[in-house]
């Protein structure tokens, strides 16, 4: 069983390592450390939202959170506007941003549960609403983050981004939540077979509600951190994270059919994806070629890692 679990995520780390080795061989060992540092700091953001997406995808077939980019943007805009570059208002700003994200999560699940809208469409339609809120509230002003937040988001210790260390702690926490807590076990059970889980007396609604709210909160955290990192919130800041969040989850070995999560795989996949882009940049590949190779890599990795038999 353990060997089976390990199988899918060692792939992504091996691929990441390979790509890194090719890159530094090409540069003659130059910038090996810098490449890793950069990969870690950029991968951190993808990992945060990837963890949330993983929980949602694990909650069963057809579950996916398409509102992640919009929620990130809303959280970033709310945080920057409430803080208004004032350090003393930082805590209030973070609380407001996470509060907004919490509401998005609740709204998502309300659409899914009460209106019985398929999760893909529910989170898609709510993301439209959330994005409009962010646009209307932000009104195109770019407010700088308060210095401590910016420092925190960009701080490094011996070349390792502080945020990456914290996200590692978060990942370990989620790893244990999935294995050892009532919520985690319930989530896996619900993901494998919702009806069986319900018959077994698991609180299906509560579990799924927690999952969607969790994902929204993680998007919120990512939005705040990214605003700190890149000097303010932008209305398109979440865009690339929609595909990235799904990609890292699936390449990382989490089952799309639900019921099987893989935390370490997300790290491997996120590093792989970023290092791949770095490698292609080093080779001087054009934007088009970079896109094609990225796509082919995704398809190759999923083909090699293999699909799984549908669980019924």
């Amino acid at each position, binding site marked *: 069983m353990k060997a089976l679990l390990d199988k899918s995520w060692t792939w992504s780390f091996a691929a990441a390592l390979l790509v890194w080795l090719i890159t530094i061989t090409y540069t003659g060992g130059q910038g090996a450390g810098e490449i890793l540092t950069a990969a870690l700091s950029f991968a951190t953001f993808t990992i945060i939202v990837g963890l949330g997406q993983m929980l949602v995808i694990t909650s069963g077939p057809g579950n*996916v959170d398409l509102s992640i980019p919009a929620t990130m943007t809303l959280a970033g805009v709310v945080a920057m506007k409430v803080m208004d570059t004032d350090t003393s208002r930082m805590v209030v700003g973070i609380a407001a941003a996470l509060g907004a994200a919490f509401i998005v999560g609740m709204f998502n699940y309300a659409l899914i549960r009460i209106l019985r*809208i398929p999760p893909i469409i529910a989170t898609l339609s709510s993301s439209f609403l959330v994005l409009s809120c962010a*646009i209307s509230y932000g009104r195109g002003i770019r407010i700088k983050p308060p210095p401590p937040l910016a420092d925190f988001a960009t701080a490094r210790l011996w070349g390792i981004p502080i945020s990456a260390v914290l996200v590692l702690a978060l990942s370990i926490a989620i790893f244990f939540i999935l294995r050892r807590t009532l919520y985690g076990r319930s989530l896996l059970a619900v993901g494998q077979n919702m009806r069986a889980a319900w018959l077994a007396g698991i609180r299906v609604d509560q579990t799924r509600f927690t999952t969607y709210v969790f994902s929204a909160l993680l998007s919120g955290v990512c939005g705040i951190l990214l605003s700190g990192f890149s000097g303010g919130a932008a209305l398109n800041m979440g865009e690339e994270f929609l595909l990235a969040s799904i990609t890292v989850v699936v390449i990382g070995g989490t089952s799309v059919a639900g019921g099987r999560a893989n935390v370490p795989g997300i790290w491997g996949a996120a590093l792989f994806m970023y290092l791949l882009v770095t490698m292609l940049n080093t080779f001087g590949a054009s934007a*088009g070629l970079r896109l094609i190779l990225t796509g082919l890599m995704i*398809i190759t990795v999923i083909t090699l890692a*293999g699909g799984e038999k549908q669980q019924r």
Partner: protein
Amino acid sequence: MLTRRHVRQALPFISLAVVLLATFYVQPRAMSYFGLNLMLQYAVPIALATIAQMFIITANDLDLSIGPFVGLVSCIGATFLTQSPLLGVFLLALLLVAYGLIGALVHLRSLPSIVVTLGLSFVWLGIAVLILPSPGGKAPVWLKALMGFSMPVVPLPIIAALVIGVVVHVTLMTSSYGVIARGAGGNDKALVRAGWSMLRTKVMLYMTAGFFGILSGLALLGLTTSGDAHVADRYTLYSIAGVILGGGEFIGGRVSPLGAVVGAITLALAGSFLIFLRISPDWQIGAQGAILIIVLALRALVSYGEARQ
């Protein structure tokens, strides 16, 4: 007798009627040949992309690459198809084969279609960017003429949508091939036991989807007259929403071609309606989300009653 099932099936059409009437109420001048033509012309490529998505959904899969695919077709159309038509047609045929191969790959390795098509979306976009790094090129003259053709009395987009909807409906809902195709999504094991090849069925479904994707790209090119890799990025989401708005479901091979076309038109029309309403641009996209939610909430209400009956 009017049962709730009938109401549910009529819901996409009722939604369209409501949005149409609301548009006419806000902007009476839209109620003309010219107005309808203008509002609905972009509904044609969206409807074609929605039909493409519907064929994939029929097999319980999902195509996240249809938007970039439509963009790629528009780029090929604006360059190769204009300069050397034979090469252009050959490339488009190659795309069709690629779609079939993807279907085979997804089936043989039982891969999650979401991930494979996610990867594909990068590939399509990449090729499109290589062909046309910035928007440009020229649509073939015949394509422009076809899309700009003015029909007597009834605007072309309405006729086109009707023809697409009816043809696909008849094929998928009444022919034996259509029954098998829907069976692939309903119960694949039963299909295999009855002696049908699941591989062949899936390849056919994917190739049909590719075919309608190509039609969508060409139709869009005929309207925009120049190619752009990013022109249809939103189509992926539009097409999924269109299928669901039209009464389709993600699993079980339960789809409705006529509904899908109507769903796509409703989405396209909702855009014009919101512009006529003079809603602040900030809320345009939000209002579109709200319309989606309202329509689906209505369906939930009807279905809920149906289950209780």
